[in-house]
């Protein structure tokens, strides 16, 4: 089926070339980091995790978000998602590849990465994260490929693949739960030490993943003659709304716990993220504009969707805008605020702000571009197969 990705119009090739340019720059930046060391990043002794790990965390969510398509279709037999379930599975593949690339970019001795397998350590959540991520990647490759092949041949998928489909449902939940457990089990990191971290991650994942899929569907409707169907898009926006509202509710609960208990450690990170943290006469607030942008985008997107539901109007452009707003809001919340906010006060009560370097941003953009490239190719294959099948009918 791969050969279907090798035929396309000039726009397709231009888009791939555009992404490849970012990948090339990212590759050069990574070579610099590999050869000279990680002091080329903005990370340091106090902020020893940064952009890479926060992107990793966000993208695990995007991968898990595919569950919101797979679950209604396979468990509730919701036929409207029939055409797009494959998109959820393929998005998960690309997201996890990006996750693994971010992990490799983040570790100081990438050539020793196999030590995770040669010396398995079940008490480390990172070990389990590797297990569930590789498992989920494998499951999505198997399910996506087998089901698409069956569709192409216009036969029912083999029965055995449903075992893997159903297995992938708890795996989707597990990848983001275990990723949350990387954070929420660490003593002395108050912002992360919260049992609501995992549910919050899942809620934001179930909004961000589908939002990206809706955007992809709308783009493909325009340029690839692929119509996901209005019913499916409408149902997805409902799912996105509920998930984004639940995420906002969970963030609100964090505020309550911090301010009502009045325990400084529980407040510091939120103060830093939303209002600026005053420390020895200096106010640290470099993320405040980003976090308020996140708040306005999230509620703006929700209001837009709410309006369209109440007035019963449907417009591709506004749905796309709403999804972009919510996706970007959740990226700011989890792909930026969660990690940096949790680290801003170090274990010795010193405040250190994080500024990523150009080299680091280059690598990050390169990995994102790689993900988009994989998504483009996989979606191209999926759409071509659908067209081929429709042509036969």
């Amino acid at each position, binding site marked *: 089926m791969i050969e279907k990705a090798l035929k396309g119009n000039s726009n397709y090739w231009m888009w791939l070339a555009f992404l490849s340019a970012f990948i090339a720059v990212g590759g050069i930046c990574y070579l610099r980091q590999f050869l*000279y*060391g*990680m*002091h080329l*990043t903005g*990370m*340091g*002794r*106090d902020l*020893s*995790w940064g952009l890479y790990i926060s992107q990793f965390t966000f993208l695990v969510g995007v991968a898990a978000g595919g569950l919101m398509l797979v679950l209604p279709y396979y468990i509730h037999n919701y036929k409207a998602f029939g055409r797009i379930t494959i998109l959820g599975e393929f998005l998960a593949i690309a997201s996890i590849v990006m996750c693994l690339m971010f*992990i490799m970019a*983040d*570790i*100081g*001795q*990438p050539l*020793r*990465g196999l*030590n*995770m*397998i*040669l*010396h*398995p*350590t*079940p*008490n*480390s*959540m*990172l*070990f389990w994260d*590797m297990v569930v991520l590789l498992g989920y990647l494998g499951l999505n490759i198997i399910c996506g490929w087998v089901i698409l092949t069956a569709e192409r041949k216009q036969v029912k998928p083999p029965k055995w693949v449903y075992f893997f489909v159903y297995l992938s449902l708890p795996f989707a939940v597990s990848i983001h739960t275990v990723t949350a457990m*990387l*954070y929420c*089990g*660490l*003593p*002395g*990191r108050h912002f992360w030490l919260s049992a609501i971290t995992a549910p919050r991650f899942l809620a934001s994942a179930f909004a961000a993943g589908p939002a990206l899929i809706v955007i992809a569907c709308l783009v493909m409707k325009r340029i690839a003659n692929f119509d996901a169907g209005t019913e499916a898009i409408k149902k997805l926006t409902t799912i996105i709304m509920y998930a984004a509202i639940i995420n906002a509710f969970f963030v609100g609960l964090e505020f309550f716990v911090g301010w009502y208990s009045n325990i400084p450690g529980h407040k510091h990170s939120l103060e830093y993220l939303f209002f600026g943290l005053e420390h020895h006469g200096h106010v640290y607030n470099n993320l405040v504009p980003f976090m308020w942008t996140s708040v306005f985008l999230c509620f703006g997107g929700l209001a837009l969707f709410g309006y369209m539901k109440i007035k019963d109007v449907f417009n591709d452009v506004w749905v796309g805008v709403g999804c972009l707003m919510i996706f970007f809001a959740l990226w700011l919340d989890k792909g930026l605020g969660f990690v940096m906010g949790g680290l801003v006060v*170090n*274990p*010795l*009560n*010193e405040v250190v702000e994080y500024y990523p370097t150009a080299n680091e941003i280059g690598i990050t953009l390169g990995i994102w571009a790689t993900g988009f490239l994989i998504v483009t190719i996989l979606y191209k294959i999926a759409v071509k197969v659908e067209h081929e099948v429709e042509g036969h009918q």
Partner: protein
Amino acid sequence: MDKQRRKFLKIAGVTVLAGMSAPVVVNLTAAPPALASAGKGQATTSVPAAAHGGEAAPKGVRLGMLIDMRKLYGRPELLEKVMAVCNKVHNIPKIDNKKSEIKWIWKTPYANAFIDQSTNHSSKIARENDFLVLCNHCNQPPCVRVCPTKATFVDTKTGIVAMDYHRCIGCRFCMMGCPYGARSFNWMDPQPFIKELNPNFPARMRGVVEKCNFCGERLALGKEPACVEAVKEVGAIVFGDLNDPQSEICRILDKEHTIQRSAALGTQPSVFYIV
């Protein structure tokens, strides 16, 4: 023919999968002797402690340190000496950049060292003096719990939380787990920043985490930790077995009121302070 090929592919696939996962299974099922004895140690710690929130009955050697700050007040030169000696014997690079610096033992104000103690009306002495901080060699170390490769581990013979620089993949999860900020990462090649190389101790490479090792290499030669020796003249640092009631450190701990850093986190630090 086609069926045979399919069958072959199935068998080959299963074999490859089994081969790939074999090291995991072998390593998980066959615990090395060191781990087996750690298991025994854990069995004793799971016995309910005598007092609620207290530590379990001691077993084996657990090395600890007592820093009597009363003997260091007003003598910043002694703190400097401790730090300098440690840097020298352990080939710690001197990087003048807070972002990339490496620290094993260093000085910091009272409010930063003891973040859970009140500083509302702290004494003049506490306000005017710096305090020595280092790895606490916890009895329940979160860094060991989170490490995905066992590159940091508890040495069961001494209770020291040790590092294997050759196994560390540099994920820095241990730095996240440590609630004392005791760990440093080699953001760049440290060797050019080592003033005078001590050939008796390994210099680290870029991309691995390091921290205080309670001078395990000196203890093996029957010597005291370098910091203890550096302030021997005033006897400010006492080092010994916390599980041996007859040791000097235990006799002082019996007599004096001591505090630990962030003891409420349940890490059971092995470094005690008299302030």
